[in-house]
């Protein structure tokens, strides 16, 4: 995947664009090859934090590592940064092997969840610290510090100490500090977790803007699937040390490859039964007219999102269900329905149906067969 990078010489870096110099194609491609890592937990037994993970991230992509606590996403991030040593496999960046390098030699920088700003230094000094570790002239250090401060919109707070700033400001300072070094890859470890909802949403937009402006590869760790789908060019879903699925948010949402992914991202109904002749039968429902992509199987699992179902005439009829629960959320109606065989079906429909549904009623269930995904 080629990324278009604007060519600017170092002398006319404008305020909005702290841009990387163009280099050979793939110069910042990150390749993670069958990486494994185990820990000893307090009781002494081995925990596989990473289990044979392989992933390739092209230059300039915004990738989100998503998964529940303990799934390995943070361990992978720290392994790329150099704070964890991997047990097997290797990690290449731009063709060079980095997993054997100490953290301070890797062209990779991290934004920590706790921001980790140096408390005894001002914001400007925090940012300059990273630059001073390279062989850069003092005048250039100052200009780069100013440029990155403008990028994150913190210029007025340059001389403040971290204790004198709000959470959101500290977060931007941490971001600036990491970006100032123009790393090939920027690692972000749940950086927005400590912010309140409104601030988090505005920071998500800011992050996308900064990502576009710098063209740096961003690897973002979160357990919040909404955040993942809002931010990522691609999402890598992890569970128990294994990479479950990688794809664009759309792919992950509409075509989850496992029950775990289907349930972790968004709501879903998983139906079990047999498929023959493009007809599904199981769990009290019968769905004809399945698309050709769906393979026949005697014990198959299909997944259907709540909004693919409907209680209004129009799509394919699939069975009779009883209403168990109705929840009105303002912009939609969420209903929990039970099929004849006792299987729970989650349906999301227009709120206008509210007064037409009573708990205990039997209604007809319809489904849009084009939106059905197959797991097994």
């Amino acid at each position, binding site marked *: 995947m080629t990324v278009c990078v604007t060519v600017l010489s170092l002398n006319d870096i404008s305020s909005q664009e702290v841009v990387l110099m163009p280099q050979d194609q793939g110069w910042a491609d990150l390749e993670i090859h069958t990486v494994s890592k185990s820990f000893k937990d307090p009781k002494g037994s081995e925990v596989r934090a990473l289990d044979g993970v392989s992933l390739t991230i092209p230059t300039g992509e915004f990738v989100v590592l998503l998964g529940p606590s303990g799934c390995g996403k943070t361990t992978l991030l720290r392994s790329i940064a150099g704070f964890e040593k991997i047990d097997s496999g290797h990690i290449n960046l731009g063709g060079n092997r980095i997993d054997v390098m100490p953290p301070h030699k890797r062209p990779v920088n991290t934004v920590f969840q706790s921001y980790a700003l140096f408390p005894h230094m001002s914001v400007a000094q925090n940012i300059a610290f*990273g630059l001073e570790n390279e062989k850069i002239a003092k005048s250039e250090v100052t200009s780069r510090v100013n440029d990155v401060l403008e990028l994150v919109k913190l210029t007025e707070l340059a001389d403040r100490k971290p204790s004198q700033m709000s959470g959101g400001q500290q977060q931007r300072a941490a971001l600036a500090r990491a970006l100032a070094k123009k790393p090939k890859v920027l690692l972000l470890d749940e950086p927005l977790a400590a912010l309140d909802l409104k601030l988090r949403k505005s920071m998500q937009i800011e992050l996308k803007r900064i990502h576009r402006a710098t063209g740096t590869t961003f690897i973002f760790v979160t357990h919040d699937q909404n955040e993942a789908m809002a931010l990522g060019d691609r999402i890598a879903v992890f569970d128990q040390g294994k990479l479950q699925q990688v794809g664009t948010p759309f792919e992950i949402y509409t075509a989850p490859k496992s029950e775990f992914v289907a349930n972790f991202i968004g709501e879903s109904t998983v139906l079990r039964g047999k498929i023959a002749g493009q007809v599904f039968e199981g769990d009290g429902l019968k769905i004809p007219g399945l698309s050709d992509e769906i393979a026949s199987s005697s014990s198959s699992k299909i997944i259907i999102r709540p909004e693919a179902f409907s209680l209004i005439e129009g799509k394919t009829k699939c069975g009779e269900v009883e209403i168990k629960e109705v929840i009105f959320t303002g912009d939609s109606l969420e209903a929990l329905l039970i099929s004849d065989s006792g299987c729970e079906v989650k349906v999301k429909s227009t709120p206008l149906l509210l007064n037409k549904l009573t708990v205990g009623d039997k209604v007809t269930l319809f489904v849009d067969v084009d939106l059905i995904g197959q797991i097994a």
Partner: protein
Amino acid sequence: MKQKNWNVSHLPLIKPIGIASLIFLYLPLFTVLMFSFNKSEDATTWGGFSTRWYATILDNTDLIRSAKVSLSIAIPCAIIAALIATGLAIGTGKATGKVQNVLRALVNAPLVLPEIVTSVGTLALFSFVGVPLRYSSLLFAHVVMCVPFAFLPIRSRLRDFDENIFEAARDLGASSVRVMTKITVPLLVPALLSSGLLSFIISMDDFLTSLFVSGPETTTLPIYIFGLLKLGASPEVNVIAALLLIIPTLGLLVGITWTATRRRSNEARNK
């Protein structure tokens, strides 16, 4: 029997014993203080108020000399022990190798073993190796004794910090030496001061190790005082004991009020 709005008096005997123990702790101290102003020459029986014995202190050249010896050991000891302890804290970090654990246990041993064992051992070692008992040998012995104490405030302060800060410094390209000089040490400065102060006090107060390891030229203040005490109570000793009481107490009170005012001004500034 249900208790609503319980307080500490509902736990039996806690309050009376607590108060009694404070009285127990301070009664002897007040006694010494009081008796230093005793007019009578019989040190143990009260004969009226007077400050006459305080005046004799300055004439006591042996006392002054031994105090100088103690200071000349305690000040370098404080500096060296604080530095060594800081090096230990920084160099070992969170490492847990077997060898490191053994070495750290050794460094900590003076805290845990009875002082008579360590002091006798040091004397035996010096004798075995042929080191004469003079200033430098006493200084070494003191440093070794103070390091485990000096280590405590430093380790405690390091733990207070977010570990990520040090990782961030590495992440930003700093070699481990630079992390130490630019981040760790500046952040440790207050702990270094308390470390040095702690070592100073321990060295000044030390008796047993000094007794065994000191030679004829290095009579420290506690050794001199012990010699006086062996002869029994006397008005001069009353004054010396009272001074040993007053000086650290005043120092502590000054220290406590200073940290309290700093804490209050920090809290006000951060609001």
